[in-house]
């Protein structure tokens, strides 16, 4: 099946009534989650993951993916209207978007943001079809050494690109790898760090860890800061249309943002956030009137908003084609695959084409739904901000608790949730980004398995592993990304 035949097949899967409904629920929840500061898409996906057990694999994954890219739309709404980014990826949008709102152009900013996101989502789907399929074919040639190098490089790049210092990221990576070793060892079944507990033999579940670090920790921070209910101004529907000049100024930034976002999404790290900053910087650099940026330049909204949606599509490529998630959100999607007995990666396209193509096609359907929903219903979504924060926080905590318990009917998962919630709060106090911990927790077992298989293959020769062409290239890329900033600083100090 060629890429475009596959996409047509995927639309046949995505447009079934149950999958359309799942996509709708996902993007709706994603938009609401994006509007609300606090619980982000990762926490929401983790909360809803148990509810996908009863669904068909494609249906459950379509819903979860919908939450991921839907939250990008929601985050921009509050950035523009109230200067409160609902998502980290919408921080940049607030710079010029809120200025436009103050000038009475909120509707235009929202419209350009929605259209830009839709265009980027569509470009992203095309990118997945072309690059994802090609990458999956190449990955069939990967052996254990290549997969090991890919996981190591991914963690190195993530450590450099995550918020905070490399030292802090390394600490989180180490903790994530360590947690991943708890339970039955993957090759021989030997029990490690279980202290005689049968429950610990199953290992530490990913979902309660994520719910704790992103959901519970966020609520603890909100409790500390004091709960406030936001004041929101109205947007008149008649103001929604941008002028012809605004469309003209937005079109190239949207095109550039789509590509920048998709490419950034391929890279490990906080892709959606990075993509928006790269896009904003690029637009300001190439603009003939850069002094307008920060005062309500529509290019400063169009480019970043396209970029963050493009990045969500780009992030799906390593997950679907290689089976490797490079962010917490795609790590949750990997968890969903595993729960349904599926393994994403090069064989997914051939063995379960309805899942692969169904998810890809549903991203286009979901982006179309978001474009249609977000503009007329912007007032409804924004009114969610008026809900009392203390009530939302309490109910979210209750959902986290019952959701974590429902995974395995185990008190251990509850203790993991609470423990990581408190740990996540401590990390917030230290301004340490926990995302490397999540990615390392997911990649750790794969890293161990491929390392041991590689050592078996080469009879213990590490040199034979690292000198394989692709392995060497990947490790060099990772080392370069890690070493580049300090080397650049040293060179600058030397040149007069």
């Amino acid at each position: 099946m060629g890429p475009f035949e596959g996409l047509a097949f995927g639309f046949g899967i995505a447009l079934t009534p149950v999958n359309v409904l799942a996509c709708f629920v996902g993007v709706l929840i994603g938009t609401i989650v994006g509007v609300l500061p606090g619980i982000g898409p990762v926490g929401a996906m983790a909360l809803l993951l148990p509810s996908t057990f009863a669904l068909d694999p494609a249906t459950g994954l379509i819903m979860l993916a919908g939450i991921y890219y839907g939250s990008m739309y929601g985050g921009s709404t509050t950035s523009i209207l109230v200067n409160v980014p609902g998502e980290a990826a919408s921080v940049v949008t607030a710079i010029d978007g809120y200025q436009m709102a103050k000038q009475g152009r909120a509707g235009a900013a929202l419209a350009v943001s929605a259209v830009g996101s839709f265009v980027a989502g569509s470009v992203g789907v095309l990118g997945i079809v072309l690059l994802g399929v090609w990458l999956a074919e190449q990955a069939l040639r990967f052996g254990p050494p290549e997969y090991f190098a890919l996981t190591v490089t991914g963690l190195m790049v993530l450590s450099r690109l995550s918020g905070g210092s490399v030292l802090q990221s390394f600490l989180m990576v180490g903790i994530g790898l360590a947690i991943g070793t708890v339970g039955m060892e993957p090759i021989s079944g030997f029990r490690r760090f279980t202290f005689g507990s049968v429950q610990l033999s199953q290992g530490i579940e990913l979902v309660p860890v994520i719910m704790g670090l992103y959901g519970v920790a966020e609520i603890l921070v909100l409790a500390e800061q004091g709960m406030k209910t936001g004041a929101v101004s109205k947007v008149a529907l008649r103001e929604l249309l941008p002028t012809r000049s605004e469309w003209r100024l937005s079109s190239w930034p949207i095109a550039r943002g789509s590509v920048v976002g998709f490419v950034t999404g391929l890279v490990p790290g906080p892709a959606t956030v990075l993509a928006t900053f790269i896009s904003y910087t690029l637009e300001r650099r190439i603009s003939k009137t850069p002094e307008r940026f920060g005062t309500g330049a529509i290019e400063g909204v169009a480019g970043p908003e396209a970029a963050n949606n493009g990045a969500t599509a780009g992030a799906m490529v390593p997950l679907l084609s290689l089976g490797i998630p490079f962010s917490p959100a795609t790590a949750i999607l990997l968890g969903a695959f595993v729960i349904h007995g599926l393994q994403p990666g090069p064989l997914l396209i051939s063995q379960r084409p309805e899942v692969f193509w169904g998810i890809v096609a549903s991203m286009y359907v979901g982006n179309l739904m978001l474009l249609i929903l977000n503009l007329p219903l912007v007032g409804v979504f924004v009114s969610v901000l008026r809900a009392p924060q203390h009530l939302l926080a309490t109910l979210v905590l209750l959902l986290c608790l019952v959701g974590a318990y429902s995974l395995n009917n185990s008190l251990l998962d509850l203790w993991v949730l609470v423990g990581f919630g408190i740990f996540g709060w401590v990390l917030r106090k230290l301004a340490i980004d926990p995302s490397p911990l999540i990615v390392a927790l997911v990649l750790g077992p794969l890293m161990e398995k491929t390392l041991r298989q590689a050592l078996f293959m080469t009879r213990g020769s590490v040199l034979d592993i690292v000198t394989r062409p692709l392995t060497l290239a990947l490790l060099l890329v990772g080392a370069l990304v890690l070493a580049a900033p300090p080397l650049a600083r040293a060179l600058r100090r030397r040149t007069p």
Partner: protein
Amino acid sequence: MGERVIALAFLAGSGFYLALSFAFPFGSTARPGPGYFPVAVGVFLCLVAAVFTRVAFRRDAGAGGVTMAPTSRSARARAGATAVGLVGFVLLLPWIGYPLAAFGFVALLLRRFGGAGWPAALGIAVVSAALSYWVFATLLSVPLPRGVLLE
């Protein structure tokens, strides 16, 4: 001070993890055993935690330095009370069952967060406990604990 304590906790935890890893069969480089990867991770973790601790004990916190966001005592008390509520829920759940634990958790937290009098807090607690029990236990067939005292 707090950040130094946390850094030392990371270091102690890393050392503990490494010590436990040595108890597993290491194997050899040609045939790595179950202890091979944990020992490698433990060594990495101890090195990183040691540097992290050194940075935390530095006087001036420059790039890579560890600082803790300052908060007032009342702010920390609010977060602490929430954490205690969570721990209390998990401890009491097997004894009093989900409906009662959820009711108590929601009511106390609403009062602690502020913004709700006792009648509103109790009313919301009843509705949320009942609704969540119905959704998870009845609709999704999750065997939520009914509690030792109620069985």
